[in-house]
């Protein structure tokens, strides 16, 4: 299979505030929304505005295919000095372009940005059990460090665990 990420028409650039509508659309998609800490339209608005805000610090990357955004990966920088040796990663891929290597590419490049530019010691990511991003992260060297059952309560009353994955950047090439 030819991956989009191997195409000359695939590129990664720093994110810009104008990427917000794409981010919002992708996070809102029914296949995505379950894996983020959002329930309502307002939650999505608040979260994605905060998310794209990190582009001001050069902490966010946007993947483009044929000149159009197809994925965003962002390092959420910590607000306190005792915590600035690490950060939190979030990423999302355009639902129309999933399964084409973009998630791996954007997570890898964003993690690498954390290592080479921000000089973090480690990066962690928080999501919920069953999230399709988990195998991607494992492939990149992330390991599960915390699992908290009953963290999410879905509309039908079922619970999902919160999963925290982390990678030591000294182990990332």
């Amino acid at each position, binding site marked *: 299979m030819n991956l989009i990420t191997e195409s000359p028409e695939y590129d990664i650039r720093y994110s810009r505030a104008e990427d917000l509508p794409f981010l919002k659309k992708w996070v809102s998609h029914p296949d995505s929304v379950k894996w983020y*800490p*959002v*329930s*309502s339209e307002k*939650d999505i608005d608040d979260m994605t505005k905060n998310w794209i805000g990190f582009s001001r610090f050069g902490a966010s990357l946007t993947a483009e295919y044929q000149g159009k955004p197809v994925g965003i990966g962002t390092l959420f920088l*910590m*607000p*306190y*000095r*005792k*915590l600035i*040796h*690490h950060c939190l990663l979030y990423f999302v891929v355009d639902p129309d372009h999933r399964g084409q290597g973009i998630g791996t590419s954007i997570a890898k490049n964003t993690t690498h940005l954390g290592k080479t530019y921000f000089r973090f*010691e*480690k990066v*962690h990511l928080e999501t919920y059990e069953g999230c399709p991003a988990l195998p991607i992260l494992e492939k990149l060297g992330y390991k599960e*460090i*915390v*699992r*908290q*059952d*009953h*963290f*999410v*309560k*879905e*509309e039908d009353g079922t619970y999902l665990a919160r999963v*925290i994955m*982390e990678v030591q950047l000294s182990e990332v090439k």
Partner: protein
Amino acid sequence: MVKKPVVQIRDTTEDDLPSIQEWLLDKEVLKGFPMIDKREVEDSVRFWRQYIEGKMSITALYKKKRAGCANLYIQPIEKLKHQCLFVIIVGEEFRGQGIGTMLMKALEKRAKEQFGIELLHLEVYENNPAIGLYERLGFKRYGSHPKYLKEPDGTYYDKIMMQKFI
């Protein structure tokens, strides 16, 4: 005549914020929090306002003096609002008098009865003496985030995560 209890618990008000800030600025207390200086403490205390407005914060008075405070960080997100993190602070001069236990019990009651919280959880840094109090109150460790906090001298502390179904 009915004697008034020595410790009273009431809703936190904006007037309590300077005391909270003062307790947090105690060097020993700050070791248990991610903030490092006055500016960072002021920033974090500013966030308390929304919890005060939402009646998610309580204050303990010992002989009418502010002695401690506890806060429920309930997220206004439908799928997450059955559980919440909390924080508790007791002023240095009021420790060892059961005020932390009283605050915890009152907070747990409020979480359950007023907000329908099912799962209460907390985060502390390793070696924090309050871990014993949480264990006595039925909190169990469910995980730890290694080397979460790094002091300016390079010492790392794991973040210990505990929870209790209420």
